[in-house]
């Protein structure tokens, strides 16, 4: 708004707005009329303050009378109810206000229109200036061309005049010439080429033409030869390039060849070209051969370009970390691998070096060091042996535990056996008694086998072992076992008589026995019980 204040009609705006800054200074309505109104517009903030600054509680009457005066000078009706009274005519005041508002709106609209017009005029001005400069140039060009045509016309006119003069002069000169001898020469000289001069006839004219065309033709032929030479050179270069491109392309790129638009036709063409090449037909400059050559080179080049682009993409992808191709190792991995390998190599080298050093030391060092070294070695061995002892002891403990458990089991089994034998003896006795009840002639030998507790055991064992023999025919392996078992059991029984806790460990301290007992327990475990059971079954059956 501020920019256009110079354009807007000052009278309309200044009166309504500029009173306020003015009155804020003075604050006395009496001396207002004598002051010159300023044109500067106050800002909206100051306007508000001025709104209150004009009329305050004290000078209401003066301000009202001032307003009334101003309005009446502007042509509005007075706001007072009567001509001299102090009462305000509200209706007329409201009307005046309305009129003022309407006026304000009109002014604003007019201002807007003027602004728009100004903008338009500005752009028009620019446009016109451009046109003007262009027109100026055109005008000057027109001036030049008109002057040039005028000049040419004048020149032609002068030239014609000049020609006329020349003709006239020529005539005069020719007339004069007849009298004098123009050329004086001692004797005529022979021609440079030694030939005689010839008359000018039609034949000579024809010959001239012929010669001229010959000259032209020879020139063209020479140029054509040069161009042919150039062409063959370029073709050679192209062929070479083609070969190089084909060699550069990897063999797997044969596929895109087949996938090209021509398909099989392309390969045929390529074959043809190959044949042509072989026959040195490229010396021909016919259109088809030329086209084929250039087309094939273009295709090969495109393939090479694609290949190179693919390689570039792979490299860039490898950089970004995504490895899709198996045969392409990303750079980082590659570097890692190489790092690892290098590390390995270094380690191996170090090892080799240390080994060499040690070897050397061994071979070439003196006694003290050798003793020391030997001691070192002995220490090492000792430590190793200690380790082994420790392990050995642990294992021994384990075995002892196992043996304990086995012996306990064996004792249990022996007891069970004992019980079993007793039962058997009782049963046999019963049977025998039942049998002897039939025949009384039997001896007491048999009761000795069954009746005594300690001996009966032995006898039982013997008899059982004896009785076991016939059934042992059935199982051949059983024969050695009963002896072992008897041995074991005897040992057990002997052992059972004594307190078990102290005795058992003593029996098995010595390592020699250990293995045997182990074997015994094992075999007994495995087959002894089975045979026992079998024998029992055998006996029970009948």
């Amino acid at each position, binding site marked *: 708004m501020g920019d256009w204040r110079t354009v807007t009609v000052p009278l309309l705006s200044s009166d309504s707005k500029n009173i306020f800054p003015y009155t804020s200074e003075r604050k006395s309505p009496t001396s207002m009329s004598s002051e010159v109104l300023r044109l500067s517009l106050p800002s909206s903030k100051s306007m508000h303050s001025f709104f209150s600054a004009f009329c305050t509680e004290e000078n209401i009457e003066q301000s009202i009378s001032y307003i009334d005066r101003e309005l009446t000078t502007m042509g509005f009706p007075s706001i007072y109810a009567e001509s001299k009274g102090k009462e305000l005519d509200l209706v007329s005041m409201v009307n005046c206000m309305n009129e003022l508002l309407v006026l304000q709106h009109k002014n604003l609209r007019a201002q807007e229109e003027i602004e728009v017009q100004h903008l338009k005029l500005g752009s028009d001005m620019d446009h016109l200036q451009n046109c003007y400069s262009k027109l100026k140039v055109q005008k000057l060009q027109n001036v030049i061309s008109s002057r040039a045509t005028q000049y040419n016309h004048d020149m032609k006119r002068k030239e014609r005049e000049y020609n006329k003069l020349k003709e006239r002069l020529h005539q005069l*000169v020719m007339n004069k*010439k007849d009298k004098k001898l123009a*050329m004086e020469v001692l004797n005529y000289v022979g021609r*440079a080429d030694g030939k005689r001069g010839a008359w000018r006839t039609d034949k000579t004219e024809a010959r001239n033409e012929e*010669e001229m065309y010959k*000259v032209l033709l020879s020139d063209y032929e020479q140029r054509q030869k040069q161009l042919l030479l150039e062409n063959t050179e370029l073709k050679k270069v192209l062929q070479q390039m083609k070969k190089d491109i084909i060699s550069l392309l990897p063999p797997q790129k044969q596929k895109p060849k087949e996938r090209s638009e021509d398909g099989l036709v392309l390969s045929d063409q390529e074959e043809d070209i190959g044949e042509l090449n072989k026959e040195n037909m490229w010396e021909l400059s016919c259109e088809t051969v030329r086209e084929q050559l250039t087309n094939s080179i273009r295709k090969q080049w495109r393939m090479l370009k694609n290949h190179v682009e693919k390689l570039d993409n792979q490299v860039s992808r490898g950089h970004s970390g995504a490895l899709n191709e198996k045969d392409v190792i990303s750079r980082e991995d590659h570097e890692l691998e190489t790092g690892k390998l290098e590390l390995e190599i270094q380690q191996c080298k170090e090892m080799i070096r240390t080994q060499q050093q040690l070897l050397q030391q061994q071979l070439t060092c003196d006694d003290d060091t050798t003793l020391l070294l030997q001691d070192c070695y002995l220490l090492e061995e000792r430590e190793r042996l200690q380790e082994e002892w420790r392990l050995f002891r642990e294992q021994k403990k384990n075995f002892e535990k196992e043996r304990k458990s086995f012996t306990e089991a064996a004792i249990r089994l022996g007891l069970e056996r004992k019980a079993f034998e007793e039962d058997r003896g009782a049963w046999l006795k019963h049977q025998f008694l039942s049998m002897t009840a039939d025949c009384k002639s039997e001896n007491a030998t048999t009761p000795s086998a069954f009746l005594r507790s300690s001996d009966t055991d032995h006898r039982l064992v013997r008899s059982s072992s004896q009785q076991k023999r016939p059934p042992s025919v059935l199982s051949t392996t059983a024969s050695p076992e009963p002896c072992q078992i008897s041995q074991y059991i005897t040992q057990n029984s002997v052992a059972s008589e004594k307190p078990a806790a102290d005795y058992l460990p003593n029996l098995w301290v010595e390592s020699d026995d250990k293995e045997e007992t182990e074997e015994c327990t094992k075999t007994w475990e495995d087959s002894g019980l089975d045979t026992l059971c079998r024998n029992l079954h055998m006996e029970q059956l009948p």
Partner: protein
Amino acid sequence: MNFSELFKLSGLLGRFSPDGKCLASCVQHRLVVRDASSLQILHLYSCMDQIQYIEWSSDSQFILCAMYKRGIVQVWSLEQSEWYCKIDEGSAGLVASCWSPDGRHILNTTEFHLRITVWSLCTKSVSYIKYPKACQQGVAFTKDGRYMAVAERRDCKDFISIFVCRNWQLLRHFDTETQDLFGIEWAPNGCVLAAWDTCLEYKVLLYSLDGRLLSSYRAYEWPLGIKSIAWSPSSQFLAIGSFDEKVRILNHVTWKKITELEHPAVITSKKTIVYKEVEKSPTLGTERLSFPPTRALASSLFSTQSKYDICQVPVSLHYIKPVADKANPKVGVGMLAFSADNSFLATKNDNIPNAVWIWDIRKLKLAVVLEQLYTIQCFQWDPCQPRLAVCTGSSRVYLWSPAGCVVVKVPGEGDFQIVSLSWHSSGDSMLLLSKDHFCVCYLEREEV
């Protein structure tokens, strides 16, 4: 490098014979023919008036001396010193005179370019060529001497006529699409003729030997156009120097521009070598001073030595702002020359008048810039090897070759301001011309 003594000369008329055996020079109305190596006078001829132009015939047997004021051409024979020939154009006047390629005909251009008269030394026949064009290069012969192209103007239109030199028969006659034909030049292979328009109109037309228009080239429309043109010796390139300080090179296959060579006042390319001529203050031993000073001492005191220094790029060259309101402004590429082996192109930009620009044609890049102390007057390539001789109006001659460049002062007292030079056909010696004297410089094989 040996220098001969100075001999008198007038009108910058010093020419080696085409076979390289003799050297012809003029002093006023006398024609002196010397041996090229010993400079011994072989023949001395007197002409009727001050000689304005001399030319050797192609077989080095005859020399023509033209006196334009009198309108007379005199021809002298080397074989027979008593032989004489005088051609008097009379009231027709004489503006130009030249030999035909066979060395037996003389073409005289009469005043106001009324006609070209072809005088024969073998027969009594005379031929006339009417309406020749009054332009810089109106007559052009092919290198093998078979054909001649003449620029003509009839009824305010330009034409070109091609004649067979053997019997002066008209072969072709065609009009050109030029406003005001300025010059014509055959390509060294004799099959293409370049014709270019006045500087108000940038246009180059290329015609085949049989008169067909092969191509037309126009770089821009309004500013001043072509200033100089040169064919490369192999006919592969046509270099066009124009007023916009650029050289455009056309190729012979498509007749299209292949490159633009610019001549800026500041050289920034790192690959360009800039040789700057700097003055060396003369060294004097104090013991040698004597009073009164001898001539030699005086000359050595006042003559300045100079040498070449290599400047580091970027180099800014001495630049003259052209005057806008004068005709034929000193702007643009005014001198163009290809080396004999087609590998270099030497150019001069007229608003950087002290510099010679040497372009490597194989790379189409600026190879060397020679900045001299004074304005370049003339440069010419050695006809055998890529060696450029430059003169700037001082008494020093400058030679450049790819091996390096050298400044040589012509020994001798007094002023010898070289304004023109011309190589011997063998490339072993060079003719240095000043306004009043000439000198022959003999170059040893190993030098530069």
